[in-house]
């Protein structure tokens, strides 16, 4: 039986019994969607379709449809890729790291956070594919025996590391997520009556794999979750470290930096948590989960954002310092150019959104306000997108030989694809919110006694 300090605020409000929880969690699945949901869904659907059209156009005519050129060969494509990957990090972190730290407050958010991870990574995975000149040959990047002798892949290439890292991360996250989902599906299955909702009944009995909640199963369940968490944690760090190596292992001034791995991971958590907040604050409205996603959860996350934000800021400063300290004129110019060159505005946005705005969380009033948090989380998302843009474009557009210096401006296709992925992401997430148990109810029930408001009040 877990104990919890009295002074801690309850994590579940409104005197919920086990059954109440069951009811609440299955409500969105059983009931009809409210109008917020429909508005958001149709909006994202439009974006999604638009994005698909833009991708089709790109694949049809060539990468020339984008704003790239001989000097800046990557811009929005990889920026979006890294941004989405970053977002995809908080989920696993919350469910894995916080699980290892036995943080109870994770339980009401980890399910959605993981969903976000998976959908985010799915978006990210799109870009390495469509940014290829010949995507129909994408299978060349897998070590498959072939007629060519056999011709293999190049294990020295960070891009190949990406391929492995991302596919591993994606699949492991899915597994981790699903293992946790099984008991909850079982719950839904058992609530569905074969008469009123035969379809759903069948669906959920299929998805629940015949879970019955035996003691031995729970024992294994807990151990597996723990081990998966233990595996996922280094995975989270490795994935973004490897993504950062796309840049760190190159020779381009502004990319060739050893600080990148930790710096990218921090940035990822930072943006990830921001996105979780954005989503949860929306979700608790559209599927009425106010009781489970409390200001306490938001506050905890805000604290993490404040921490990671400051760390990211430190990384920026370190970068500047190192470039100056290195004494390499190319390095020095690269960073001088970032701050004062043609793309100074991007750098400014990055600095404001990532370093300054999070500092507002020092004030508990802001930390404890849904509205403020929502706005700030959006800011952080923007800031982190610009961080990637700054790293990629400003480093490339002026590298070693001034003769090939030029600039980049996106085509409407670039923009369309980016919006498209956002649309796609929300389409997936909203569908998830209506069909999945959005909160790990089984786990949640286990802490009602310790963290539920009713019990707290008793004491």
């Amino acid at each position, binding site marked *: 039986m877990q104990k919890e300090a009295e002074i801690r605020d309850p994590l579940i409000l409104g005197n919920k019994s086990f059954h109440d929880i069951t009811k609440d969690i299955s409500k969105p699945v059983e009931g009809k969607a409210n109008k917020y949901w429909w508005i958001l869904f149709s909006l994202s659907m439009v974006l999604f379709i638009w994005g698909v059209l833009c991708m089709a156009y790109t694949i049809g005519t060539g990468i020339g449809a984008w704003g790239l050129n001989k000097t800046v060969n990557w811009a929005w494509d990889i920026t979006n890729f890294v941004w989405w990957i970053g977002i995809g990090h908080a989920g696993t972190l919350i469910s894995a790291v916080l699980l290892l730290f036995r943080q109870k407050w994770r339980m009401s958010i980890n399910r959605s956070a993981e969903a976000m991870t998976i959908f985010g990574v799915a978006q990210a995975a799109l870009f390495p594919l469509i940014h290829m000149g010949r995507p129909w040959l994408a299978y060349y990047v897998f070590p498959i025996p072939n007629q060519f002798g056999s011709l293999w892949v190049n294990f020295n290439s960070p891009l190949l590391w990406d391929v492995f*890292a991302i596919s591993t991360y994606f699949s492991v996250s899915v597994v981790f997520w699903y293992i946790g989902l099984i008991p909850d599906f079982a719950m839904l299955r058992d609530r569905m009556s074969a008469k009123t909702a035969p379809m759903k009944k069948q669906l959920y009995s299929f998805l*629940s*794999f015949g*879970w019955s*909640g035996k003691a*031995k199963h729970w024992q294994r369940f807990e151990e597996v979750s723990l081990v998966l968490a233990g595996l996922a944690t280094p995975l989270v760090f*490795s994935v973004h470290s490897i993504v950062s190596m796309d840049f760190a292992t190159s020779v381009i001034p502004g990319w060739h930096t050893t600080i990148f791995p930790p710096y990218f991971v921090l940035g990822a958590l930072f943006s990830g948590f921001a996105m979780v907040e954005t989503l949860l604050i929306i979700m608790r409205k559209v599927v009425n989960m106010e009781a489970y996603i409390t200001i306490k959860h938001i506050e905890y996350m805000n604290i993490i954002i404040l921490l990671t934000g400051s760390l990211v800021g430190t990384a920026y400063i370190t970068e500047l310092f190192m470039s100056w300290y290195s004494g390499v004129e190319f390095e020095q110019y690269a960073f001088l150019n970032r701050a004062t060159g043609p793309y100074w505005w991007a750098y400014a946005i990055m600095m404001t959104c990532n370093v300054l705005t999070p500092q507002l969380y020092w004030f508990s009033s802001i930390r404890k306000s849904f509205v403020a948090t929502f706005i700030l989380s959006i800011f952080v998302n923007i800031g982190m997108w610009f961080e990637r843009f700054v790293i990629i474009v400003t480093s490339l557009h002026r590298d070693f030989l001034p003769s090939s210096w030029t600039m980049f401006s996106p085509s409407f296709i670039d923009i369309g694809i980016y919006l498209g992925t956002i649309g796609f992401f929300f389409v997936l997430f909203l569908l998830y919110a209506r069909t999945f148990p959005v909160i790990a109810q089984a786990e949640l029930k286990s802490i009602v006694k310790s963290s539920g408001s009713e019990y707290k009040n008793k004491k």
Partner: protein
Amino acid sequence: MSKNTLYGIFDCELVLLAAVKEIRANKIEIKEVYSPFPVHGLDKALGLKETRMAITAFIYGCIGLSLAALMIYNIMIIDWPQNIGGKPNFTFYHNMPAFIPIMFECTVLFAAHLMSITYLIRNGLYPGGESDSPDARTTDDKFLMEIEVEGNVADVKAMLTKTGATEINEKDA
């Protein structure tokens, strides 16, 4: 002679836990306990053995690591060594720093997936599998204790009620 199965249903995990301890203390064999969420200490109370999931994960991880190393060694050093950016590929050792990321990823990949599969197999879980829980409410808010009794059912029933079962069902085998 007849063999009956009793289902004692509890509302609270704490009560259940106590009940389990007491009943087992009375040398009554508890066949199975169904609960909506993991009840801490229940496995010990029931005297279940430590699960070995973690060990399998470790083994799978080792397999993954060695397979990855083998694959890369064969591809980059043996089958078709190429001069890539002048990176020395004369021996695996020379070129290994570049291979560590993928070897790590493969380790995790194998460990995680194979362990999960083992978990499903050992639990007999598979897509579309049938639940064998005697009472649907066990995934909602009820805790169910299944006891097989030979002979005097009454005592056991009494024991259950005593230990706080809110409901007792009986099924003839």
